[in-house]
């Protein structure tokens, strides 16, 4: 069992969290406002270049995959799981799938939902890309909601193998989608607006990289406990909202670095986190602080390490759609290892925590290779623990504690030996 809910308040240090809470609430309010005003609401899979297209066409995007962490944080995930099981879906399926299917099929009509719940879709995009559970989630949604659907297709290609024809095919899919959206809205896409949306995304990605790079500072200005800031990278790409927010975050983080303000007063260990956080227990990131240990880098936050070209908006959003998923999954294991090697060096990592996540096979596969690479090649100890990013019943805190305590103690001893004067 996970920790009881009352014990799960996460300690966050960035002042930007106040603005973030408003941005989150406003995103969902805006969805309901769009619905009321007759602006289309489209439900789409995460991590692709469709969002820029949506905002350029005044369409409000809804990401069920982003709604799932919200449900986990507020505790409605359990009732969504139960609803999903009631429709015959197996407990072994990904927690995002179980939450979103349960919510869409039953929970969406419940009264008094946090953040007002999700506005129902006016159309759906079923995109044959990303992981199987995401693809399947949208197939269930397409089956359930009585609304127009566009099915699209995007091949899964390892980062290092992406070629001209992959991009060309991606652009062809985007053009099909544009025709669908134009037909749906009765309006032509303004390419200048799309270029502007792409420019905002590009700037958001640049700011994101700059913010993440500042975490290399010792002491680290913030930890993985603040990773909720990625909300704007998922939901507000293609808008100045993400850019303005990230500029403020950057300024705050720069200031913390300049003043030498860390997460803990005396940072002793710098940790790396692999895989999705436990959304129902973000306080886990605070757990390490009792040893003055801080999670300073993650694989998951690398999903937005990309650049887009406003002069080539269609190619840019096709490229974003092609790379976002392979960047963090096992589609490109060698690329992922390369990314981790780089992070270990740049962030001066002492040890790595690998979340073996039952809800996410694509990110969990390859973790034993990662662990071996860290230990054997880089001499950085890594520990693997069993968990689940959505389902607290599949995470046991006591074994986690036992394993992590021993691991951190070993890291501290290692550090002490390294700093001990030679006899």
């Amino acid at each position, binding site marked *: 069992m996970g920790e009881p809910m009352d014990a799960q308040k996460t300690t966050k240090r960035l002042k930007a969290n106040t603005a973030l809470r408003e941005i989150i609430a406003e995103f969902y309010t805006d969805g309901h406002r769009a619905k009321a005003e007759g602006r289309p609401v489209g439900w789409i899979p995460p991590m692709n270049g469709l969002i820029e297209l949506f905002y350029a066409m005044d369409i409000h995007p809804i990401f069920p995959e982003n709604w799932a962490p919200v449900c986990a944080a507020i505790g409605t995930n359990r009732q969504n799981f139960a609803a999903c099981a009631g*429709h*015959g*879906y*197996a407990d*072994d*399926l*990904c927690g995002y*799938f179980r939450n979103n299917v349960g919510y869409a099929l039953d929970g969406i009509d419940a009264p008094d939902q946090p953040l007002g719940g999700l506005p129902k879709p006016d159309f759906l995009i*079923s995109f*044959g890309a990303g*992981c*199987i*559970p995401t*693809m*399947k989630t949208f*197939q*269930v949604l*397409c*089956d359930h909601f009585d609304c127009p659907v566009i*099915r*699209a*297709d995007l*091949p*899964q*290609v*390892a980062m290092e*193998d992406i*070629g001209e*024809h*992959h991009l*060309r*095919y991606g652009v*062809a*899919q985007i053009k*099909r989608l544009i025709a669908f959206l134009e037909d749906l809205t009765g309006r032509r896409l303004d390419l200048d607006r799309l270029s502007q949306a792409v420019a905002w995304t590009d700037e958001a990605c640049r700011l994101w990289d700059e913010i993440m790079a500042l975490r290399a500072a010792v002491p680290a200005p913030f930890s993985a406990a603040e990773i909720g800031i990625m909300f704007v990278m998922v939901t507000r790409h293609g808008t100045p909202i993400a850019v303005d927010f990230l500029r403020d975050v950057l300024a705050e983080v720069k200031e913390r670095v300049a003043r030498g303000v860390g997460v803990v007063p005396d940072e002793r260990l710098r940790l790396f986190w692999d895989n999705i956080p436990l959304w129902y227990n973000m306080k886990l990131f605070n757990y390490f602080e009792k040893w003055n240990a801080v999670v300073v880098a993650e694989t998951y936050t690398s999903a937005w390490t990309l650049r887009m070209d406003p002069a080539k908006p269609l190619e840019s959003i096709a490229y974003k759609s092609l790379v976002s998923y392979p960047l963090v*999954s*096992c*589609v*490109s*294991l*060698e690329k992922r290892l390369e990314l981790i090697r780089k992070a270990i060096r740049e962030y001066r990592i002492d040890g790595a925590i690998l979340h*073996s996540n*039952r809800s996410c*096979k*694509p990110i*969990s*596969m*390859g*973790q*034993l*290779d990662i662990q071996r690479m860290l230990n054997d090649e880089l001499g950085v100890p890594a520990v693997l623990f069993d968990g689940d990013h959505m389902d607290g019943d599949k995470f046991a805190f006591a074994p986690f504690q036992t394993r992590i305590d021993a691991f951190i103690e070993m890291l501290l001893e290692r550090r002490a030996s390294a700093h001990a004067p030679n006899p």
Partner: protein
Amino acid sequence: MWSIRNVTAGGLSTTIREEQAVAGCRRRRETAWDGVAWRDAVANHPDLLKAEKARSRRTLLGTLCAHTPVEIFHAFDIVPVRLWGAGADPGGADPLLQSFICPPVRQIMAMGLAGRYDFLDGLVHAYSCDAACGLFNIWRRNLHPKFAFQLSLPYMDTPEALAYAQVEFRRLIAALETLTDRAYEPERLRAAIGLYREARALLRRAYAHKRQDGGPSYADLYRLSLALQVFPVETVLPWLTAFDAAADGPAVAGDAGTTRLMISGSLCADEALFTEIAALGGNIVLDDTCIGYRTLLGEAAPEGDPLTALARHHLARPPCSARADFPARRAYFREQIEAFRVEAVVFIHQKFCDPHLADHPFLKTVLEERGIPSLQVELEGEGLTGQIRTRLEGFFEMIGKNRP
């Protein structure tokens, strides 16, 4: 016959080149399985392929999905060998894969780590599911095959997808040219397409007998489907021809069961399950699996550019759970259960198999709408367990009670 334009190429007319290619493809050559009865050959295929590798040094490539274009391999004289784990202990994969990865993927990895696939020169994955993709990458990193290739094929039948699929195939061809030091010859690909068309047509005829009231045992159909996926097509063709000649004759050992049953799932490769179902009164007339009937449907056209024909064939393939959408799967499922007059379905799911677990509720609804009973069993890498046997017994008992 082929549709051939009478142009010359390289000093030979296209007609002559193609005839030579067909003859070359069909050429009977010595193999490690000469004299071995086909059922034994299928059962012992890893050992026989290993012996063949040692004997002939022929190139053998492992494949992970039914959508791998085997004809292309054949055109390069490469034997494509479908991998599905073959009953290995999945625990052997523990050093590289977590326990919540599906049993077949763990079993394939376990066999790879144990050296059971050392005869392979490499691995090819036509992108199907997350677990197979992970397996491909982890295999490549840890077993260092001489050749590793991931095809990323499209899933929709559009003009852009056709153009894209051809480029992906050409990418594979270029890699195989480097591997074999041999130039791609369209005539050889056309010949390979012809051979596979012939073989699949023969196997479909065997299923057609099951569609009626007779036909061979399902276990034999399953073995022959596998044979076509692990042995060279020219080896399997004579087996299929002989089998076809006898397929509906009085001497054929069919299934005695009376309930016309379909099995559905991904890699259903536990013969003991089929035997148990037959013993309980089930007559498996059809499968909806990744290694069965679906692999036999559709044809690459024998005429025109063979690569285009193969790409068209790929785009029109029957919908699989890993990539197709619900409407396509639902329509296919309905068509097949009607065509084969299916009276009951056993879903044989591999634990943790996302594509099939996610499809199960809507497929079950299709059956409920028709009053067709179904049972779901989950395999955990141990084949037919006592628990599964008990559930099957209960299922058949229920069917028996509900019969008019």
